[in-house]
Structure formats: C-alpha cells, structure tokens
C-alpha cells in the first residue's frame, strides 16, 4: 500500500516538474485583453523572457527582454523562483528515486529509505511552493493592472503558462505530501515485535536495569512501552499480571524467569565448562600440527645449515687476526682526523644552510612582493577589462544611434527628393500655364485690336452710308417741292451731327438706338421702316451677337401679358416635357414622352400641327432652336441629343456619348457647337462640323439645365448649385449655391441676368455681373412640380413666367417684383415648361398630362 502511494507521489512529482518546466517555457504568461479595446486584430503576449506581438495574419514578432536589471522586480523574482523550483524539483526527483522502496539504489535499510523519501517529498513541497509563489505573484500583478483605472499601458489577461504553472505547483505539493505521507505511514506503524535494532534497543533495555526495586522497574517498563511504542504480548501480559497482583516484575513471569535461568544453567553446564578447554585444545592441536610440519622441515635443512654456520665462523677469525697486527693506533688517529674533518665540514655545511635559509627568506619576501605586484596588475587588468567592456557597450550604443540617425537622414533625404521632384513638376506646370496665359493674352490683344479695326471700319462705312443717305434724302427733299417746317430739319441735322461725334464708341451707339427709335417712332414710319430694313439686312450679314438684340429689342415693345387661353390642345400622347418657340415666333415645338418632337404653326390664335420629328428612342427632355431657326436640337432620355432641320423635318445628327439621360442641350451662340448636360454628371461640348465630342467636363452632379453666353456655360445642378464654366478651360469659373435643386435656367435678351427656378419654389434672377441674386419671386400656390420644370423670361426681360405644380401659370413683373398674373383653370396637372414667343405675343405652357395651352392677351 505504502509502496503504491509512494510511487503515485513520485509520478506526480515528476509530472509536476515537467509541468513547471513547460510553464517556464510557455509563451503565454499574459495575453493582451480585447475587453475595452477597439483593435482586436493585434494581440500581444508576454512571458518571463520575451514579449511578442501577433497580428491577424499570424505574423509574430518577438523581442527578448534584453536587460535583466531593467526588468521589473517581480519578473526577476519570478524568474529566480521558477528556476529554483526547477532545481529543487530535479534534486527532489533524484533523492526521491533513491528513497523509493521499489528501487535498489544503494543498500539502505527501509528506515533510511523512508527518510530519503521524506526529504525528497520535502524538496518537492518547497519546489511547489516556490512555483506557486512565482506564478501567483505574476498573476496578482496582471490582475491588479487589469483593474487599475489609472494604468495607462496595455492591459493583459492571465495566460496559459500561469495555469500550467499552477497545475505544476499543486501537483508538486500533492506529490511531495504523498511521498512524506507514505514514508510516515511506513515509519509510524507500531512494530509488533519487542525486537528493535541494536542501537535503539540497548538504550531501552539498559535503563530499567539501573532502577532498583521491582515496582519501579515495572513502572519504567510501562513508561518505556509508552515512550518507545514497542511492546510485545509477553510484556503486556507481564504488566497486566503485575498490576493485578501487585508483585514485582520478576516474580510476575515465573516461566520466563525459569526459561532464562534454565538457559543460563544450560550454558554454564554445556558451554562455559567446555569453552576454554576446547579452545585450548584446538590451539594445541594447531600447534602440534605446526610443530609436526616444522620438525619435518628442520630435519631436511639440518645439514645445510650446519655447513653454512662453520664457514661464517672461519671468516670472522681471519678478520680479527688481521686487524690485530699493531696498526690499530695509526688507524685510530686517522679515524680521529677524519672525524675532525667531518666535523668541520659539518659546521661549514651548517653555515651554508644558514645562508641558504637566509636566501630562502629573502626570496620568499621577494616572491611575496612579486605576488603583490601580480595581484595589483591583475586588479588593474580587471579594471581595464571592465573599462573596455563599458567602452564597447557605449560604442555599440553609439553605433546603434548613428544607424538610427542615418536611417532618419535617409528618409528625410528621400522626402526631400520627392518634394523636389513635385516642386520641379509644379514649376514646369506653372511655367507652361504662364506661357499659355501669355499666349492667350496676346491672342486676346490681337483679337481686340482686330475687333477695334473692324469697328472702326464699320463706323466709317456707317458714317459714309449715312452721309450718302443724307445726301440722297437731301437730294430727294430738294427735288420735292413740299413745304417743310424748317425746324424739323434742323433738329434731324443736329441729331445726326451729334451721332457723328459719338460714333467712336459703338456701345453708346447701340444703347442709344432704342431710345432714338422711341423718339422717332411717333414722328413717322419712314425712318423706322428704313431702320427696320437695315436691321434685317444686318442680321443676315453680321454676326449674331449684334443682330439678336436688334430682333429682341424689336419685339420688346410688343410684349403682351397673357391673360386668356387662346387654344388648348392635346400635344402628345403622354407627358409633354419641353416647349419652345422658334426665333421667328411663327413655329412652336413641343417634345414629350412619346418620343416625338412636334412642330406647330401659330396662326390666328391657334396652333396647327405642321409635322412631327421622329428618331428619338426615348422621351424628349429639352428642345432648342438655333438662332436662325433652321435647326432644332432636342435632348432625349436615350442618352443622346439629336438635330433636325426644321424645313424638311429630317434628322441630321445624333450626338451619342453620354452615359445617362441627357437633360439639357443648347446651341452655343455661334451655332456650330452644342453643350449638353446629362444625368451622368457630365457636360459635353460637341462640334457640329466634325460631329464629335470636343470636351467632357465632370460637373460632379446631375445637370438639369444649361444656358450659354459666348464663352461661358452656366449649368444648373441637382446638388442645388449653378456652375459657371469657361468652355476653353475645363474648370469651374464660379459656383453659386441655391436652396433647392436647380430645375431651369434662362437668360434675358442681353445676357446680363440669369433666371433660375429651384425646388425650393423660388424663382430667382441672378445678376451675372455681380454674380449675386438680384431678385427672388415667389407666390402663394407656386410650387415647382418637377426637376425639369422650365421657366422663362419675357423677350424684353420685364416679366417672368413659370408654371406651378397645380397647373397655374404665374407671371411676375421684374420691375416691381410683384406677381402680375396667376392663370389657372386651363391646366389639369403640373406645368412642365413655359415658353414666351420672341415676338412677345404668345406664351405657351405644357403640362404633365398631354395638354398644351397657348396664351395671349386677347
């Protein structure tokens, strides 16, 4: 039983030792916690020797604790304790192995083995305790740090190593306890025999003998029974009987005494009587044997021996006779002399010895000195070595820092290089830009001068013509013999003179024309008609920008506010999205979701269908005539814009390239280019001559409407912004943010004001010169119905017309800023678009259902 227990204890101990070793070598003593941490891809862990970081890809970086002394005290202590524990365990295993009952190492008795096993167990308990202390200490630190609210570092959790260590410690203590226990059991079992090992036994037996009386002896016996834990049946009986009878111990067991006495008697008779005799007899026997042998040998050697004896005697006699021949005296003298000589020699040698001793002492002293020297030298060497190692470590540090600095320097240099490169690139760009700019400026200057020349030439021509006309008029007047009020003539002449002087500035001339007409109009139709003819001719021959204001200004006077619906008609099958008058005001174009553009002739207050333009694959979103009225441009939901000729209704071009619905398309003022804006958040510039896309601009937001001036394109966007683009550059010149998604844009006739409509139900006029909102129009009930609700200026720019979601047409007066008209009852659904005829006579509005309404003041 105890052997098994012991073996189990020993195995536990071995196991614990292995566990402790495993724990010491384990990587995970503490593992960084994920609690309260956002980053869980990175994990850190530590043990007594190094700390590691592992990322989610499984790449681990470990760093040994390089300096032992820089470590926190508890880590050092834990290291020491763990190593002590392992050493103790190792010693314990060896000791316990020797102490196991089942092993035969050494020939120790059971008691000794028990003691050895006990000490082995003790060692294991110590080992286990030191493991437990180390592990628990470490764990306590980890837990304290975890719960410390002021702890700034990484928080850790208990790692596997700690648990293994605890297991090892517990096993070691358990195993040690089992070893001790088993030993104690083996030792503590009361022996049933009276016999005990001699050393112990004698002590026990002797003591009672020294006491005198039988009583006290019994008492002592009992005491010794108790003390030593040894007893036998016999002594128990003895004691029991003794206690009952009250007699002495020797009288108690007569049989025992009898046996003892009998034995003594027997020995006396049988042993002691014969011991000496037999001993002596044997000696005698041996002696006689020896003698027998000796005598035999003596007999054989006898003769030889005698011979040799005689010979030695003879030689001795001869020697004596030879010496006695009277030379004894001289011999004695010689001997004396020799003796004296020897004595002298001896004294000399003594002296020498003294000197040598002196030498030895001196040499010893010297040696001591040398030793001292050597010691000091060694000390110095040690010092120097220490110094060298210090310097080496310093050198290493410095080299390390130098490397760091070099690395830093390298990175700085790299950064500097990169910056240099970018700088040079930017510089090149700047230079190029500057050159461009220079070139543009020079071109511009050239253009300017050309223009100035042209203007000069024109003015000259004009004055010449005027003079010619004047002369002609004068000649006619001279021819006609009508009586004319001379004052009138003078007035005209004066004005002409004034005009002649003011001809240098064309702007003034242009701006003045309407006023002159206004003054001239009532006076008579002749000049008026002449000027009209001139205007027509000029519009054909001259560039558009000078012609158009002419026509507009021509219509300005005729702007009539719509008051009644002249004609209500079904324009399309389905929604009508766009409507536009031709520049001549005679034709009306509508576009709807039925994929057609229809042309209507406006005559005598009615609209008659003239034809429909087909070719689009999806609904029409926007319509525009070119300034001559010969081409019609329509944008479509099928990602394309198309151009038809108005006269023969033929599809001329299809401009594809957008990747979204094209929401707006406009001719540039030269009629040779087109700008289109799309739901795909780009604007594209098309060249009609080559029919290709010249430019694509990323606007950043879906474009709902576009208008153009000579160089500037304005686009209204879904992201509530109006963007101003220069078509030569791709960049935004300016941005203006409104409060709602911009649905529509329109320009007044002299392109100084921009009309916008946005989904915040406000119609605004933006002054293009100051780029600021000049006026805002709103009305009770006005509601912008869709992202493509179009609004319009009147041709003279004095009115603004817009359709509301409830089918009401609103007209505001720009001058007063007030609502002038609100025309309802004719539309049944939201008005999508409004167009004002360039003549100013008609307004047409189209709605979400198929209807269109033609309005006028009649």
């Amino acid at each position, binding site marked *: 039983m105890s052997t098994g227990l012991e073996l189990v204890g020993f195995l536990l101990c071995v196991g614990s030792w292995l566990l402790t070793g495993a724990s010491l070598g384990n990587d995970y003593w503490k593992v960084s916690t994920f609690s309260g941490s956002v980053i869980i891809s990175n994990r850190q862990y530590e043990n007594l020797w190094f700390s590691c970081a592992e990322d989610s890809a499984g790449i681990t970086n470990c760093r040994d604790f390089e300096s032992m002394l820089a470590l926190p005290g508890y880590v050092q202590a834990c290291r020491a304790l763990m190593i002590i524990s392992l050493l103790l365990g190792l010693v314990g295993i060896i000791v316990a192995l020797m102490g196991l009952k089942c092993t035969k190492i050494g020939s120790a008795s059971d008691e000794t083995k028990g003691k050895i096993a006990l000490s082995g167990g003790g060692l294991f308990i110590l080992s286990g305790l030191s493991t437990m202390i180390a592990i628990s200490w470490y764990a306590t630190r980890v837990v304290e740090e975890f719960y410390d609210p002021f702890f700034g570092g990484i928080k850790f959790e208990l790692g596997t190593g700690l648990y293994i260590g605890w297991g090892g410690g517990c096993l070691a203590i358990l195993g040690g306890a089992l070893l001790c226990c088993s030993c104690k059991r083996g030792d503590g079992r009361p022996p049933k025999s009276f016999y005990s*090992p001699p050393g112990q036994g004698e002590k026990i037996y002797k003591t009672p003998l020294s006491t005198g009386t039988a009583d006290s002896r019994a008492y002592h016996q009992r005491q010794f029974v108790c003390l030593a834990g040894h007893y036998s049946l016999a002594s128990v009986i003895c004691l029991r009987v003794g206690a009952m009878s009250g007699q002495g111990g020797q009288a108690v067991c007569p049989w025992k005494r009898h046996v003892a006495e009998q034995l003594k008697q027997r020995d006396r008779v049988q042993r002691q009587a014969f011991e000496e005799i037999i001993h002596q007899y044997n000696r005698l026997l041996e002696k006689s*044997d020896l003698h027998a042998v000796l005598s035999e040998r003596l007999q054989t050697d006898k003769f030889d021996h005698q011979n040799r004896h005689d010979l030695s005697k003879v030689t001795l006699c001869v020697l004596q006779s030879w010496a006695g021949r009277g030379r004894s005296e001289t011999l004695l003298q010689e001997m004396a002399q020799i003796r004296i000589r020897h004595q002298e020699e001896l004294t000399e040698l003594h002296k020498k010895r003294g000197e040598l001793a002196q030498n030895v002492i001196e040499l010893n002293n010297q040696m001591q000195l040398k030793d001292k020297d050597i010691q000091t030298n060694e000390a110095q060497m040690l010092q120097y070595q220490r110094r060298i190692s210090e310097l080496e470590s310093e050198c290493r540090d410095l080299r390390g820092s130098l490397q760091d600095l070099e690395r830093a320097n390298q990175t700085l240099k790299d950064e500097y290089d990169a910056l240099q490169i970018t700088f040079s690139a930017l510089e090149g760009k700047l230079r190029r830009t500057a050159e461009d700019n220079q070139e543009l400026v020079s071109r511009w200057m050239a253009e300017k001068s050309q223009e100035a020349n042209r203007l000069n030439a024109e003015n000259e021509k004009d004055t010449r013509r005027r003079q010619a006309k004047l002369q002609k008029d004068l000649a006619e007047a001279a021819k006609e013999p009508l009586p004319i009020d001379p004052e009138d003539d003078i007035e005209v002449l004066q004005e002409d003179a004034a005009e002649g002087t003011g001809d240098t500035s064309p702007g003034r001339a242009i701006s003045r024309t309407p006023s002159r007409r206004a003054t001239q109009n009532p006076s008579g139709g002749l000049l008026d008609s002449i000027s009209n003819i001139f205007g027509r001719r000029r519009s054909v021959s001259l560039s558009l920008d000078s012609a158009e204001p002419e026509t507009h200004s021509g219509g300005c006077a005729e702007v009539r506010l719509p008051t009644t619906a002249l004609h209500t008609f079904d324009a399309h099958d389905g929604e009508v999205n766009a409507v536009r008058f031709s520049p001549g005001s005679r034709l009306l174009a509508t576009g709807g979701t039925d994929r057609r553009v229809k042309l209507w002739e406006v005559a005598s207050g009615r609209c008659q269908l003239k034809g429909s333009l087909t070719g689009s694959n999806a609904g029409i979103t926007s319509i525009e005539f070119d300034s001559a009225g010969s081409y019609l441009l329509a944008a479509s939901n099928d990602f394309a814009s198309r151009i038809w000729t108005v006269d023969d209704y033929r599809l001329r071009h299809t401009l594809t390239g957008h990747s979204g619905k094209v929401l707006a398309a406009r001719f540039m003022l030269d009629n040779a280019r087109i700008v289109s804006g799309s739901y795909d958040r780009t604007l594209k510039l098309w060249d009609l001559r080559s029919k290709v896309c010249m430019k694509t601009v990323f606007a950043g937001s879906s474009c709902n409407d576009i208008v153009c001036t000579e160089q500037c394109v304005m686009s209204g966007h879904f992201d509530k912004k109006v963007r101003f683009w220069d078509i030569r550059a791709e960049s935004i010149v300016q941005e203006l943010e409104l409060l709602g998604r911009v649905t529509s844009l329109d320009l007044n006739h002299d392109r100084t004001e921009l009309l916008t409509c946005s989904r915040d139900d406000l119609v605004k006029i933006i002054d293009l010169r100051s780029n600021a909102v000049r006026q805002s129009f709103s009305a009770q009930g006005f509601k912008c119905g869709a992202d493509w609700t179009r609004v319009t200026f009147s041709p003279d720019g004095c009115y603004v017309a817009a359709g509301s979601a409830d089918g009401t047409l609103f007209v505001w007066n720009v001058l007063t800023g007030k609502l002038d008209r609100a025309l309802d009852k004719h539309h049944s659904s939201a008005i999508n678009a409004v167009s004002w005829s360039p003549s100013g006579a008609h307004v047409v509005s189209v709605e979400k259902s198929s209807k269109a309404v033609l309005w006028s003041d009649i």
Partner: protein
Amino acid sequence: MADDKDVLRDVWFGRIPTCFTLYQDEITEREAEPFYLLLPRVSYLTLVTDKVKKHFHKAMRQEDLEEMWFEYEGTPLKWHYPIGVLFDLHASNTALPWSITVHFKDFPERDLLHCPSNSVIEAHFMSSIKEADTLKHKGQVVNEMQKKDHKQLWMGLQNDKFDQFWAMNRKLMEYPTEDSGFRYIPFRIYQTMSDRPFIQKLFRPASPDGHTHTLGDLLKVVFPAAIPQDDEQKKYLVVVHGIEPLLETPVQWLSEHLSHPDNFLHISIIPAPSD
C-alpha cells in the same frame, strides 16, 4: 524486555561441546586425533563442520574421501535438523562432551539426505522459514521481503551474526496488533521412540475466547502423554534448546523467543532418566 533480549541472545549463542572422532574402520595414513568443537545449537551440522572435515582430511588418503556423515551411538545424525534438536533428542542424558563419530564411507542412503553444498542447506532453511511464515502470517511477510532480505537471514545464520539475522527476523516475528498472536504456532515435536520423524499440527496461540494457550495446552492437544499426572512421576522431559520450560509458558512467547532461526519451535520429548 531486557530478559527477552537476553533470552534471544542465550538461545542464539547456545553451544554444545562436541568431540568428533574418526570411525575406527576408516583407513588413515596416520593417527587421527579427535577434534573438539563447540557446535551452535541453532545451526546445522554440515554448516559448521568444515574444520572437522579439514582436520580429518589431513589424516586420510585423498582417494578414500567420500561425503562425510555423522553418527552418534549407531544413529546417523540428520543434518537437516538443528544441532540442538539432535543433541536434545539423542544425547541429552549423556555426559559431555557429545561424542560424534565421523564417517567418510558407507553413506546411509536410507537415513540421511545428501548435502553436497551449503546451497542445499540454504534451500532447506529458507523453505522452513517460508513454511513457518505461511503458518504465522499466511506467508505474507516472507513474500514481501526482497531477495536480499532472504539473503540477509541466511548470511546471518551462516556467519553466526545475531544482529544481522534478527534485524530481518524481527519482521517475521511481528503480528497484527489486533490479534493476540500468530495465526498458527509453527512447532515440531520430536521423540526418539516413534517412527514418525516429528509431530506437526495447526495450533492457535489463543483459544477462541481469548485465553492464551500455554505449552501445557499445546502438549495436551498434541502429546498428552508428556504431561505428568499429579501422583505420577515424570515420564517424559519436554526439552527446548536444552531446557525444560514451565508448562505455563505461553506458546506465543515460546514461538517468538525460543524458536530456531527457521522460525519453528522445535520441541523434543525424551524419556526421563530412570534413576
């Protein structure tokens, strides 16, 4: 307890003065002197008679040497009985020293066992110990011992080392505290006039009611004739180790203290001298 130890010592160191004489028919080269020796009572004849053998070999021709055997007054002495038993049984009434005749010829195959070497004695000794322990503890103690413990017992006996022997024999003499003694007492009763070599029976050291058995009880069961009647004169002597213990002596104590090294209590019953 001091007594017990002394008893053990006395038992161990009991000696019998013996005079070995060569049988007169043996052919010798010269006159063979008788050889006197103190024989240990607890040992075996062949184990202690090396000197005797050597002594007589000197006087004999080498070619005549056969296995030595001993005889006393016409009775061949069985070497596998302890010497003390042989003496008590055969020669306790004669005058000392015990005179044993040494033979080198005519080995009595019918009466004696051959003893070619000490290992035979050792085997016999160990088997006796095992038998005794089987009786005492069902053989547990001796089986738990290791080979070297057995060796220690044997070497103790062979070299006459009391301490060495008893250090190990102590264990064989232990018994559980809750019992009053061994399971059975290993004993053998020898007598001269019987054909049976010895009597051996199962006998418990105490009666079932807890009464301790004595030597008298034992004899009553095994050999009632040995107990003298009140008026009668003693017919038999009950001898253990050359002494007559009182009949009141508990057998357990006797077994523990007066057993031979082979753990048996050898009791000789011899007729009382008639004078």
